[in-house]
């Protein structure tokens, strides 16, 4: 809270719940998209938000090759905190996109 008004850093948590793209969220809180991305970094660091990398694809053993849970890690999705876009542990190639959401959901 700064000067009785809610700061963009706190408002971004509220705006995440309204969904859309990060550009939409940045516009709603009145900052540039890279400022919003930096604020997300802060909340990811505090464990309040989670950033995940998403990509498509089949498992290494081929489609249908991961019936057993132990052998399938769902290659398209990773729950590892990925840092800013461009860093995507667990994925080969470039991720399709990154998602940002509250870090309150149960893990895999």
């Amino acid at each position, binding site marked *: 809270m700064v000067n009785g008004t809610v*700061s963009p850093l706190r408002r971004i948590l509220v705006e995440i719940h309204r969904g859309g793209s990060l550009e939409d969220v940045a516009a709603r809180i009145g900052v540039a998209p890279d400022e919003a991305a930096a*604020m997300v970094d802060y909340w990811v660091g505090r464990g309040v938000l989670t950033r995940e990398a998403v990509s498509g694809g089949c*498992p290494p053993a081929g489609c249908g090759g991961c019936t057993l849970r132990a052998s399938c890690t769902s290659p398209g999705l990773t729950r590892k905190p990925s840092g800013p876009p461009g860093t995507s542990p667990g994925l*080969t190639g470039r991720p*399709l996109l990154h998602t940002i959401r509250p870090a309150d959901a149960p893990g895999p």
Partner: protein
Amino acid sequence: MPDTRTPTPTTTPLITPTCSPTPENTRTPGAPVVALVGNPNVGKSTLFNALTGARQHVGNWPGKTVQVARGTWRPADGAPVDLVDLPGTYSLVPRSPDEELTRDLLVDPGAEGRPDLVVVTADAANLARNLYLLAEILETGVRCVVALTMTDVARGRGITVDEAALAGELGVPVIPVVPRRRQGLAALADAVRQELDAHRPARPLHLDVPQDDDPELAAAEARYAWVHEVLAVVRIQRAGAGLTLSDRVDRVLTSRWFGIPAFLAAMWCVFTATTTLAKPLQDGLGAFMDGPVTDAASGALSGAPDWLRGLLVDGLIGGVGQLLTFVPLMVIMFVLLALLEDSGYMARAAFVVDRLMRRLGLPGRAFLPIIVGFGCNVPALAGLRILGNRRQRLLVGMIIPYVSCSARLTVYVLFAAVFFGSTAGTVVFAMYLLSVLLVVGIGMLLRKTLFRELNGEALVLELPPYRLPTLRVVGTQTWQKLAGFLKTAAGVIVATVTAVWLLSAIPLGAASGTSFGEAPIEHSVFGAMSRAAAPAFAPAGFDNWHAAAALGTGFVAKEAVVATVAQTYSADEPEGPDHAGELGTRLHETFEQSSGGHPLPAVLAFLVFLLAYTPCMATIATQWHEMGGRMTLLSTGIQLAVAWLLAIAVFQIGSLWW
């Protein structure tokens, strides 16, 4: 040994550093210590390599398990500098041992090895993120110089950073550099030397941090407010603020009105191009499999028993060979999809689908496994674990089987090419469109019945910038998907073909007097089973035993459908070279007969049934594991009912016109 301390996928080190267990021992005696600090992926290690050349060593920091590169920087006209490349970090609030080392060296004035000066590498294209770290560093009071990288990338986005204004705001020198081209390195050396020689104490940045129950948050708010003010002064957006080419394209591709039509148009282009481009290759490969390969195998097995020839020639070569003719088609489609994905367009498509699903009351995050499901339903079901609660997982798990996986594509293409000729691409596209409609429609139905209490959840998408697809990424993605398809074909299909051959070799009924492998396939156990199931499809116009047989093996795996079609027609054909390659003609005859003269709606009904009924045994097993037996049985029952009713509707309505 590659430098793995900081991930820098967008840069390549100029040299390969040599290893040393203790970089501390490699210090240049008497030389001032300068540390390179910055976010990951800002060109920090590239700058380090450009400054030190081959004079560097990588090893653990004393007392830590953190690897650090250390080298001697010899500017052209100055004394040597001991340069340390500290691990990349986003903040001085550490999240890892790497970041902890950077924090300790900068924050603790008594830390052993504390640098005399810090060069902060800042990315001009993502200045906000870099300024936050810079604010933290400036607060420590350590002397620093800013090396501004990626200015060309920023310019490409219509952003110019006023370096002089930035230096004025920060109170430290700001030097633009392009390490790969060695531009700005001399100016950086001058600035570093001047700061080192000045021997004046640095002026720490003091921010006005209000009292708060959460002092760390209050400090962060103050830093972000400072970042916002600095950006307002130093960042100059080109005229038409914010409207880069990427923004202008996004306005159309992600708009509420054009987003979905643009996505559908892109998909139509993909499927039309795929079927058109692949057809001659597929025909050529088909002729090769039916001709030289089959002839050679028959010749080689001329002395072998009939049952062995039947298994190898009619079964494996006929079935698997038919499926292999789809390899060119798969390659073309995977390449086109990889191009869309690597260019950044698929992320926009995911965005518009997410928005549509939210508007319809479905969980937005469901689009994540659904995207994966277009490749294969099994990992998509495994990916349900990313969803927030069990009710959401159950709902999405029940709609994923309607996502048209790549295995179903082979069947669409085979039948569409035979029955619809030049409009085959449109038919394939229509199947994918129906798949999306089923996902949304069934999802809404379940949402309003079994899952009424489901709540929405927060999700924001971070879209990548548009970029030129690279050969490496497109090639890797295509190969991975193709390899997955071929592995399945090599395993499940061979087993299914063998099982079908075995069942079709056991005589039954009218042929019960004949020996093993001698009876016509329609008078075998397999034929009898298929004929028993066929009447269920009479209202849908395809109550022929060939179709029933294909759908039966399709229950095991959709890749088996094409193989079974080839297998049953091959075995059913009279012997002789004149009948080779007549699969299309036989399919026409069969559907013409079973539909009472309406083959096109009958084939469409068959494809709709194939799309909507159970994807494969692996899907059922995964559903069982993720959702439990009761929900899996319910889901399978719903799929069969939906598939049957839709197929009947398509045939009955379609036969009014065709």
